[in-house]
């Protein structure tokens, strides 16, 4: 019993940092409607800045002073990010904002690497709080008790700020109607900056406060963001008490998980989330609301149509070149082209659900990696023939999408995005922690194709046939009545329902189809590499696909494919540099701000402008 209680206290103490980060994220979302994916990065910065300051400043005052200063410093960094990156794109569709914050993640990762190096830092102990107190005979670290005592005060202070001060009133008003708040004489630009700074400061404090229990390392950003999303989804978006309850719930469960189910600590969190969402789709204390806009805000897109003769000729020419490639190119070019085709199919499947379906999925890697793992597991454990295992990749990914979609399709916008991300983290944690089956981060190796495909040329043609076939199939679906129904549901769900389309069902099927196609890409991938690792399921992998779709252009059909080609080449070139993440991050942010239509979209606008002026001249 005493042990039980001590475990419970540890969970409560762990909840402190999680709650700080989650409340910051929730606060920022409430006002700006931006899901700040870089929030984990701000938490990481808090930890690193905290360590540095604690080493500089001595004693009691130094320790607590360092924590205070860390929050202020991270708040200032947040304000800078808001002014430079987000201010120009508040009116852009939410996907752009999310991609921009992902660019920020990359930039911060490399900056942290530059400044603090790759080595993990151990957090200093809090002066005067090094030992333990005995509670019912069980040792409980003194610092844990302090954290447990502090957290309710932070919750109360935030609650007071939001509910009892003028600033809080303005913030809540802006959450509902920013423009009206501006028309009443409030400079909402500064209000936004202020809220972003406060939310960032909270993340920074979270990072600094957890130092004596943990430390600072370069993986903290992605490690916490999954948990934070789970907390925010369980608690209800925008609800501070909800975030608090969910933080405690998740932290306490993790502590017990470590003791009783050490193999499933990561999975446990997502299981809890799934259960909560079945009962309450908008979280424990959340309210049903249209959270953020869908991916299709902004100028209405051009009507899509099948390619005309010029387009077909171009595609045919491209295919001819690809088909002739093995006769002229070196082997590394073939390998790079296989990567490109795999990535193009993966991106096309994401584009299908995101661009055509209007569902911004942040966990698409679950299906790519899921397909790859499905095939690899069969080969690895049962020596299944490659052909059969390969067929299993899209099948398993499609089934996985049916399962995940059952939870996610009910939600829209940001909720959908966060939930898909959380589920992909669930799949990742299975691959990572279920070592008996998946071998964890050792990965599954020696997954080679059948003999008749075991030459680079043969596998190249195999990839070309299936990859291009998959992409053309998706295009065909988009131009079929099913695609029309999907787009109708995206652009005007109510109108679509009124005309007899079962929007959710159409989206569900589309989600499964997108998952199966991503799984097909994963299947091609695993046999071309001969191995698969949990990295294929990481958040970063999902984001790669999002960035590709975004770079290519969300509102264009060829966007995914063009973006993938571009990205494969750029990455191949960039990754040779030491700080390639920094460059890629800056590139992404620049594209979001300067050319938000993406490559294909910008080219088309340019083309239209040229042709448009010619027309006018002709008149």
């Amino acid at each position, binding site marked *: 019993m005493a042990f039980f209680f001590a475990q419970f206290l540890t969970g409560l103490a762990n909840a402190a940092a999680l709650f700080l980060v989650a409340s910051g994220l929730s606060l920022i979302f409430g006002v700006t409607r931006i899901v700040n994916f870089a929030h984990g990065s701000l938490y990481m910065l808090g930890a690193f800045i905290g360590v540095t300051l604690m080493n500089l400043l001595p004693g009691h005052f130094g320790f607590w002073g360092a924590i205070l200063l860390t929050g202020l410093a991270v708040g200032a960094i947040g304000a800078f990010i808001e002014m430079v990156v987000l201010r120009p794109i508040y009116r852009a569709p939410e996907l752009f904002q999310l991609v921009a914050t992902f660019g920020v993640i990359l930039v911060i990762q490399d900056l942290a690497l530059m400044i603090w190096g790759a080595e993990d830092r151990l957090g200093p102990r809090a002066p005067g709080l090094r030992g333990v107190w005995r509670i019912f005979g069980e040792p409980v670290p003194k610092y844990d008790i302090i954290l447990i005592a502090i957290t309710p005060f932070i919750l109360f202070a935030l609650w007071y700020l939001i509910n009892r001060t003028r600033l809080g*009133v303005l913030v*809540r*008003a802006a959450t509902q109607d920013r423009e*009206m*708040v*501006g*028309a*009443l*004489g409030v400079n909402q630009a500064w209000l936004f900056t202020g809220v972003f700074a406060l939310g960032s400061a909270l993340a920074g404090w979270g990072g600094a406060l957890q130092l004596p229990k943990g430390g600072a390392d370069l993986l903290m950003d992605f490690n916490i963001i999954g948990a934070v999303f789970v907390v925010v989804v369980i608690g209800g978006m925008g609800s501070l008490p909800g975030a608090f309850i969910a933080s405690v719930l998740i932290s306490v469960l993790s502590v017990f998980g470590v003791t009783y189910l050490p193999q499933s600590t990561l999975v446990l969190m997502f299981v809890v989330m799934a259960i909560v969402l079945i009962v309450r789709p908008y979280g424990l204390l959340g309210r049903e609301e249209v959270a953020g806009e869908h991916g299709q805000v902004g100028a209405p897109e051009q009507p899509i149509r099948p390619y005309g003769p010029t387009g077909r000729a171009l595609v045919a020419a491209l295919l001819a070149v690809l088909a002739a490639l093995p006769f002229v190119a070196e082997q590394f070019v073939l390998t790079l082209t296989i990567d490109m085709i795999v990535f193009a199919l993966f991106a096309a499947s994401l584009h299908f659900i995101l661009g055509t379906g209007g569902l911004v999925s942040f966990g698409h890697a679950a299906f790519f990696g899921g397909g790859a793992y499905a095939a690899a597991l069969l080969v690895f454990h049962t020596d299944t023939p490659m052909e059969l295992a390969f067929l299993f990749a899209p099948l398993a990914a499609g089934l996985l999408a049916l399962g995940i979609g059952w939870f996610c399709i009910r939600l829209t916008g940001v909720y959908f995005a966060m939930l898909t991300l959380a589920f992909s983290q669930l799949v990742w944690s299975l691959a990572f922690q279920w070592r008996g089956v998946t071998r964890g981060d050792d990965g599954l190796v020696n997954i080679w194709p059948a003999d008749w495909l075991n030459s680079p040329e043969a596998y190249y043609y195999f990839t070309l046939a299936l990859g291009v076939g998959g992409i053309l199939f998706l295009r065909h679906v988009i131009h079929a009545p099913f695609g029309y129904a999907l787009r109708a549901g995206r652009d005007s769900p109510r109108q679509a329902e009124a005309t007899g389309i079962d929007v959710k069902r159409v989206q569900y099927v589309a989600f499964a189809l997108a998952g199966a196609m991503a799984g097909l890409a994963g299947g091609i991938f695993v046999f071309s590499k001969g191995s698969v690792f949990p990295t294929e399921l990481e958040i970063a992998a999902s984001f790669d696909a999002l960035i590709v779709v975004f770079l290519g252009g969300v509102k264009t059909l060829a966007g995914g494919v063009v973006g993938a080609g571009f990205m494969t080449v750029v990455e191949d070139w960039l990754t040779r540099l030491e700080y390639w993440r920094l460059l890629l991050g800056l590139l992404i942010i620049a594209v979001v701000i300067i050319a938000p239509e993406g490559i294909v979209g910008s080219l088309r606008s340019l083309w239209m402008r040229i042709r448009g002026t010619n027309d006018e001249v002709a008149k």
Partner: protein
Amino acid sequence: MLNVNDIHSYYGKAHILGGLSFEVKRGEVLALLGRNGAGKSTAMKSVMQLVRPREGSVSFQGQELVGKPAFRVAKTGIGYVPEDRRIFSDLTVLENLEVGRQPPRDGAPAWTVEQLFDIFPNLAERRTNRGKQLSGGEQQMLTIGRTLMGNPLLLLLDEPSEGIAPVIVEEMAETILKLKSEGLTVMISEQNLHFARAVADRAIIIEGGEKKFDGSFAELEAHPEIRDAYLSV
């Protein structure tokens, strides 16, 4: 006081205002009349810079407003009450008023919450209710009260009589006259000629984003053909 000079405003590619000009004089109540879609709301939003005119100028007490953000326009002393009320439905009546609160302004009546409750006694009873719990009429009063908390010199009221009960419309007319007597300059947009005549000193009629009439109600009365052409349904 307010000079709108040859403004052109667009919604996307739709040309809503095609060179609209008018003037609001200090101390008067001006009625902007016209049918649905004539451009009345766009004219008001163009003054507030919620819709940015692509051409022309809007000057208030000699200050050019075009290109300023809406909050700066509000700070020059223009209060805007939107047609669809746009109260903050999750905030209480008191909190809604708080959002509008600005420091007192020279030459403008300075409002306190209690003074507003004198004018709108219904709101006083509901001060801790949330916006969404109010009736249509109460919401209309709250949106006006909220804007008054900014102590404006000029009040823009977009269709104040729309969607509220006839009894309340009468109260609304009295309120506007009371505001005028406090020294406020008011511009209302209306489709209800009867209501406009009861409160306004002068009328402007717009149609298709252009001004078709500018004069007193007596003049308007003398030319029934104008009323028939631009106001009757």
